[in-house]
């Protein structure tokens, strides 16, 4: 079988870019008043350690699925770990779809009702899900080819209004951000999106080393998402915005470009990445569900059912405050899921290795 590491690394970067540039900057800016690089680096370190641990654990099972691994130990083990994951993933898809629909309507489709935007995004992401995971990763490849140059252009131009003096003070003695609920919420971008790594094998094979080093490429994006608004506006002003990065991009003025607002390009690119993200998380849920229900039910029906449920949940969130509340709730689920699954996989892998060694 072919090694698809490149595809996996690209999709990994794309879905994280989709998550980083919206709610993450305001979360980090709200956590502390100075030296924002400390929470960013700490969060990123967590992201990196968890990925290493998770992929290490997975590699001990030689391209087996997370589902296979848990079921091979016992059914209750599978339920303990996978039920929270299922609930978490379902919530994350609904809230993400809702939050991004709100962002889209805030920035450019102000007359379009939310349900129409949500329906469109869900239709596309549902379609990608139904095609299966290989198609999803190939789509990611295509998206990277088309949209990366645009994203790179916007990111380079976003340094236009930067005032480097705002970078100071560089140090902050108070680590109070650790207890700030906003910091927990920011984990959405740090480790909201790599659970799929446990499900794609053996359909999409990847090399552990490449994923781990590839994920390091995300660090500049994390830093830029927070520091560009900070350096453009200063901390005192940047903390006033819901979407600081989007406003910072809005201030870019390029006289030789025929387009007035390059925010549009940036937003459309990142929204497609978010569609990829929701398609991937929905796919995880479809995989879990397929094990629980009779084989006779076709996958496409599961996809349609799940998308419908997501849609219903999405339109039942009335305002932005509720979105934020759900994000907060979600953060606790995430903490549980993302701490238990990688560590349990690592420990189970270690146990099974010991057993094999004892048997031999």
């Amino acid at each position, binding site marked *: 079988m072919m090694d698809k590491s490149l595809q996996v690394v690209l999709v990994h970067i794309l879905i994280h870019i989709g998550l980083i540039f919206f709610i993450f900057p305001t979360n980090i800016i709200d956590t502390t008043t100075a030296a924002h690089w400390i929470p960013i680096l700490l969060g990123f370190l967590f992201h990196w350690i968890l990925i290493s641990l998770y992929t290490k654990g997975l590699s001990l099972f030689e391209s087996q699925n997370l589902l296979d691994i848990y079921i091979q130990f016992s059914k209750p083990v599978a339920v303990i770990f996978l039920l929270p994951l299922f609930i978490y993933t379902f919530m994350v898809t609904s809230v993400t779809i809702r939050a991004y629909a709100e962002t889209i309507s805030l920035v450019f489709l102000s007359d379009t*009702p939310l349900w129409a935007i949500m329906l469109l995004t869900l239709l596309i992401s549902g379609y990608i899900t139904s095609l299966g995971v290989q198609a999803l990763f190939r789509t990611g490849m295509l998206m990277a080819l088309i949209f990366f140059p645009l994203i790179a252009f916007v990111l380079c131009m976003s340094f236009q209004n930067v*005032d480097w*003096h705002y970078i100071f003070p560089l140090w902050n003695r108070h680590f109070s951000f650790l207890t700030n609920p906003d910091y927990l919420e920011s984990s959405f971008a740090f480790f909201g999106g790599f659970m799929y790594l446990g499900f794609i094998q053996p359909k999409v094979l990847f090399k552990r080393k490449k994923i781990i080093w590839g994920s390091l490429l995300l660090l500049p994006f994390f830093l830029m998402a927070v520091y560009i608004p900070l350096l453009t*506006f200063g901390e005192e002003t940047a903390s006033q915005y819901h979407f600081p990065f989007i406003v910072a991009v809005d201030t870019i003025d390029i006289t030789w470009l025929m387009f007035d607002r390059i925010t549009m390009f940036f937003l459309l690119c990142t929204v497609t990445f978010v569609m990829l993200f929701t398609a991937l998380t929905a796919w995880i849920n479809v995989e879990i569900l397929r094990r629980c229900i009779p084989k006779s039910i076709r996958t496409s029906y599961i996809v349609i059912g799940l998308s419908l449920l997501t849609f219903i949940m999405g339109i039942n969130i009335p305002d932005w405050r509720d979105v934020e509340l759900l994000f907060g709730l979600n953060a606790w689920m995430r903490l549980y899921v993302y701490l238990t699954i990688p560590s349990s996989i690592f420990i189970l892998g270690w146990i099974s290795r010991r057993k094999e060694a004892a048997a031999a």
Partner: protein
Amino acid sequence: MMSRRLLLKLAMLACCTLTLSGCWDNRDINHRSLPVVMGISREDSKYKVFLDIPQTSDDGTRSMLVTRTGQTITEVVDEISSNMETRVDLLHLKVIIFERKYAEEGLIDSISSFMRSREISAKAMVAICDEDLGTFFSKLQKNSSSDQTVLYNFFEKNAGWSPSVAVTRTWEIFRSIHSYTRDIAIPLIKSGKSTVIENVGAAIIREGRMVGQITADETLLMNAFDEESAHGKIEVMNHASVLIVSNSMKHHVALKDGDPYMRSQINLKVSVLETRGEPSVDMIKDELETLLTQRFNKMFKNIQRHEADILGVGQYFRTRIPRNKLAHWRTEYLPRLKIDLDVKTTIQNEGNLKTVRDASIK
């Protein structure tokens, strides 16, 4: 069987193109009015809004001036919209002009609502009008029937902008309202006698309120301090006039016994344009240096008196002063700031004619 499914798929695909327009309640461009300039004044706690809307007709574009008063700016725009046959869309608003009286009362509410709005661009330029807005707009209309983007071009870097005009955008004013160490100057204009617009100077804004003003010459120095290019500006002195070719700044900051101290060096490269009598190169240099230093010191005293840091000097002290004290930069540190400006000029060339090199030769 196969072909029927294919047909169905093709039909579905064709339906997808319907969503490509991506629009909801779409209004075509001929049903929209896109004002370029908006003027705002305040009378008896009510807003008076002026909209300058370009209209195309058979004999070229003409601009139409619409005025209305109301409780909020959005209400006024909405009312204008409902009274017109087209919908007013502020998407392409380029310049926002406040009347001086309103600017002195405080712009915080208006600027915040512009930032909140999804229609008005954060890049829209802001100016303050030194006379009654009604007369300003009527004169503007009379003098500029052929081209209604005069105001916009006046501020545009690659059109009519000159270095003695301040350029300020909405988001910069919003930043200055909240920032600890950065205030802003807004260009001050009025209708001119022979030209459409006359540059008066710049208004000193402190926390969203106009507190004072600086002259056009001082605005040039401010732009040079911010390292905006002061390129092409002509300085006239007693014995000569020179063209500033390039400028750069160097700053050195320190805290001396808790008092902020700053030493700045401004490097100017100039070329001689005109002379009166027979001044030597050194004389021109000396004259230019004393002129600029004096002018700068006068402006800086003015700034300190108003406690408004339009030069952004406080930015350089972000490393020296802890954050909680930085919040009081304007009131506690800025008035005590000592600044030494050193103007270094290099006369790059003297044009086509030779000028006396040294005074002793003469």
